[in-house]
């Protein structure tokens, strides 16, 4: 078990490093490539355009040393990144890491509860359709999955709000004061993920049901229910859990959109504002944190997989 721990950590550690490097370079390149003058953008971001003018932009230019040669700025940029100092937010005049620390908790709660909801929905449907292939349920959920996949996440969110908040008055529309506020955003994201993962689960259950060992387990005398629980589900769980790892990317993207719709104060939302206001330090900070959340969640998935199938650590 110990050796597997090291292998998984090393792999994900390397991945985190690559992510940090890519995010650093891409956001720096973005700052250079943005049309117009960086100082103007930042001043606009800070003071709102009613008050912003050339003088304010000049003050910002001096303050952040934006007139230095880009290679100097890049060197400082990467040096700061290496020391995990994400620098000062151009617009909010506070350290980026401090801002992120406050908002990170909200994004994590949202992501994990969305993940939980997607599992809660996808597994029962996936298992049922896997056990009765090409039945009415199978065809129905295939169509439903295609339909939900074709709807952008914010439209799903709005429909849920319309039904549960406006008509049924069960949940609040937006904000984040209590667990109560978490339900709609989590379900919006969860449904989006479940739309795909239920098909993956269905296929793995189907494959398990048609395997030699499933037949032999029945022939040696075990009833179908026991075979399902003892053998089929565990074998089907492996590809499903690995697929959830792949879906993390969808989760992170969804978070960015859903937080904007539900006014959820996570880092996804902060990222959108940072990109709008061209606050590059904040963009880099939030993008990096989102990337590292992804890597962290995948590390959890790795352990889950090696727990389910010890063989995977070897292959």
């Amino acid at each position, binding site marked *: 078990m110990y050796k597997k721990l090291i292998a998984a950590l090393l792999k994900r550690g390397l991945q985190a490093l690559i992510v940090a490097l890519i995010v650093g370079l891409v956001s720096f390149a973005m700052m250079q490539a943005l049309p117009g003058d960086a100082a103007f953008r930042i001043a606009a971001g800070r003071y709102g355009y009613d008050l912003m003018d050339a003088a304010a932009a000049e003050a910002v230019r001096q303050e952040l040393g934006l007139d230095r040669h880009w290679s100097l700025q890049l060197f400082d940029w990467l040096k700061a990144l290496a020391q995990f100092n994400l620098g000062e937010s151009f617009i909010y005049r506070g350290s980026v890491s401090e801002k992120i620390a406050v908002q990170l908790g909200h994004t994590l709660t949202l992501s994990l509860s969305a993940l939980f909801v997607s599992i809660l929905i996808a597994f029962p449907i996936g298992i049922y359709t896997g056990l009765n292939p090409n039945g009415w349920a199978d065809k129905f959920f295939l169509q439903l999955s295609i339909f939900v996949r074709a709807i952008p996440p914010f439209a799903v969110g709005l429909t849920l709000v319309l039904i549960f908040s406006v008509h049924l008055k069960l949940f609040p529309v937006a904000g984040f004061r209590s667990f109560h506020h978490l339900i709609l955003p989590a379900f919006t994201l969860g449904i989006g993920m479940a739309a795909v993962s239920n098909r993956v689960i269905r296929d793995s259950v189907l494959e398990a049901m048609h395997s030699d060992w499933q*037949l032999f387990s029945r022939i*040696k005398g075990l009833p179908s229910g026991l075979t399902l629980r003892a053998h089929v589900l565990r*074998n089907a769980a492996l590809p499903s859990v690995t697929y959830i790892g792949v879906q993390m990317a969808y989760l992170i993207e969804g978070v960015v959109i859903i937080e904007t719709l539900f006014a959820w104060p996570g880092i996804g939302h902060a990222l959108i504002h940072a990109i709008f206001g061209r606050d590059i330090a904040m963009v880099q900070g939030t993008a990096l944190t989102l990337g590292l959340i992804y890597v962290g969640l995948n590390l959890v998935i790795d352990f889950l997989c090696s727990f389910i199938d010890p063989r995977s650590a070897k292959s």
Partner: protein
Amino acid sequence: MTLLSVKNLYVFIEDKQVDLLGPISFSLELGENLTIMGETGAGKSLIAQAILGSLPTGLKSRGDILLKGEAIDNLSPKKRAALWGDIITALPQEPWLSLDPLMRSGQQVAETHRYFKSYNWKEAKKQTEQQFKKLDLSDTAQKRPFQLSGGMAQRVAFAAATAGDAELLLADEPTKGLDSHRHDKILSLLKAIPQKGDSLLTITHDLDLAYALGGKIIILKNGKIVEEGITHTVLSSPKASYTQALCAANPSSWPPLSSCTISSKENILVQSEKLRIGRNKIAFIKGLDFCLKAGESLAISGPSGIGKTSLLDTIIGSIKPMGGTLTRAEHIGKWEIQKLYQDPPTAFPPLISLKDNFKAVTKKHKMAWDQLLQLLENVELDASILERRPSNVSGGELQRLSFIRALIAKPKILLADEPTSRLDLITQETCLNLLKKLCREENIGIILVTHNQHIAEKWAHNHIDLNQFCV
């Protein structure tokens, strides 16, 4: 008391209403064993599946199957399945694939004990431990299937199948691909079943196994019974022509090879001195000397897992020898060492037609298409077979096709890795004779790897038993 009686059993393809098998009638008493023999692909396995009620989708059976006097062929799938493990059980054809890859072997047997005898886990584990000790699997309970060898997997599957103390065990090709040592091991297990008072139905193409098991026998050809009776009488004095051919084809009854040595030295194809062979730094063969001349055949035998395949890979050059020398004659070109594979269907690209494959090979080695058709005629294969995909061509035909395919490359050496171990006796005999004829005509040196001692001694010019060179 008759345990099982089968009358006019047919198995047919449901939507095309085409009979694959039948009429089959026989009866089996408690404590008795019956063997069903016939060529591969004659539908032998379908009988076992029909009795169990586990026919693949699309196939149906008709005719009556009586278990202890009551009809079970018209039971609902659920009721039929209730008999599994309790009254009828089956030893799977591919034991390695029939064990849950994620669960420890001991647990896969203990869960059957626990279900049938409602033990608690502790008691079920104890039972399994005893059963494993009997099958000398003492320390494998904790291992998972991917850590087991073929033989061990089979014994674990046996333990699991018989954990429910069923009265009828169906064994489908139990000795396929086993070397002699493991062959005897499974034989003793099977013989114990009738002695214990239960019944055994074995489906095989292994004549020696049938003979050793005794009891009654049924010979099948094209899905119909050609002969039946007491095994010893039928096999020692067969009446039906097919049975006679079957007995004659058994390598143990082959005439010894007429000696024809090829003296001249200069056409030595490959030679080795003190050869050491191993994989990732573990040597398992050392001090091997052999030499192969054009037109000559060399048989290499030994138990499975000793390194026969690694030896072939060393000869072909895909792995380096760990010690000693292996010299190949310079005039042997890049494609002039060809390999023949153990399981014919896996030697051909599965998703394209055979014609597509042969077109590419003939194009590569610049052989005219009608020259290929001529080759097919020599081996009595109809050209139309090329239109089909490998999956719907019989094992015997595919193996002959792979010979032809190898010949297109005009090889100087042919390496055959147990080419006929999965074929029935008659097909095996025709293939081996064909192989020898082709090599003599084309003056090709051939190395045949086999675990069958008779074949090794009676087919090849000289024979090496790797046991002497084993580390």
